[in-house]
């Protein structure tokens, strides 16, 4: 699969041109991205601190995850769509951008971390719903580090991509 060719194809689409050329469109898309990302990161930190046993210790992990995750997912979907739109506008440039690549890598690892947590660790939550297990603590701690990295590289993209 030739990603370079796909990026060039994206760059040449009408959609990409519109986002590059219509005044303020990129900024509006980016604004949705910013709101969505702080929602994702903020809600994930709530859960991570709970998993690490550092906050909300009186609250059940199951209850917190059940109530908060819908907001996380909604935020993530908006962030992914807005991110994809921004990417499309200058696909080749973003694809070749170092912090962008690092951000995508960390997102993938964060996704695997979440999947592993849900499929494995969370299975036994009844046993550690109040005093979290070591693997739950690890998942929470790793998540915090990854998301700090994602935000860091994300902001760095803005300083290294040429303006439209």
């Amino acid at each position: 699969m030739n990603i370079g060719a796909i990026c060039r194809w994206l760059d040449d689409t009408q959609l990409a041109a519109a986002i590059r050329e219509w005044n303020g469109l990129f900024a509006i898309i980016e604004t949705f991205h910013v709101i969505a990302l702080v929602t994702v990161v903020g809600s994930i930190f709530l859960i991570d601190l709970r998993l690490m046993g550092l906050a909300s210790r009186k609250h059940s992990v199951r209850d917190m995850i059940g109530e908060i995750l819908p907001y996380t997912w909604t935020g993530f979907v908006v962030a992914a769509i807005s991110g994809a739109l921004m990417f499309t506008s200058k696909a080749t440039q973003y694809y070749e951008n170092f912090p962008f690549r690092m951000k995508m890598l960390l997102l993938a690892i964060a996704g695997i971390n979440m999947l592993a947590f849900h499929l494995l660790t969370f299975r036994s939550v009844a046993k550690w719903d109040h005093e979290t297990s070591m693997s739950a603590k690890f998942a929470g701690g790793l998540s915090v580090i990854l998301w700090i990295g994602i935000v860091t590289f994300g902001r760095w993209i803005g300083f290294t991509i040429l303006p439209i």
Partner: protein
Amino acid sequence: MLHNLVEWLLSTRLSQTIQEVEWIVPTLQTIHILFIAVVLSSVSMIILRVLGLVGRSWTIYETAERFLPWIWTALIALVITGALLLTGEPKRSLLNPVFQLKMALLAAMIFITAAFQRSIYGNKGAWDQPALPKPAARLIGGVSLLIWVCIIIAGRWIAYVSVP
């Protein structure tokens, strides 16, 4: 008067260092974004509880007690990183109408948060009788959440609106 402040800030060693050392502004912005996530999630947990949408197994008092400290701590971190960012680029911030709007909205929200805190700590049970707070309280909660989001949007749009 604002212009005098801008000129004075530009003349300081701190301002010059922030402008010259490349990684300082991106790092400050990243820390700023992470604490925005903390404020938004903390504020949301309280407001969504007031609206009766999350955490109904806990009283509003307990929810406020749990999240208000995080709000104030994060706001302090935001003011510190914000002040440093401002010191590095005083024209871009102090003389920018979008920045001025952000500060006005922020002042309003700090006032409302402090008023809420005084009200809820002053009368432990009041906010939890009856089961759902008065419509006025819920309306102020909803509007507050909207204003917090507007503050975040204004923060991003400082970069897009030029100083007159």
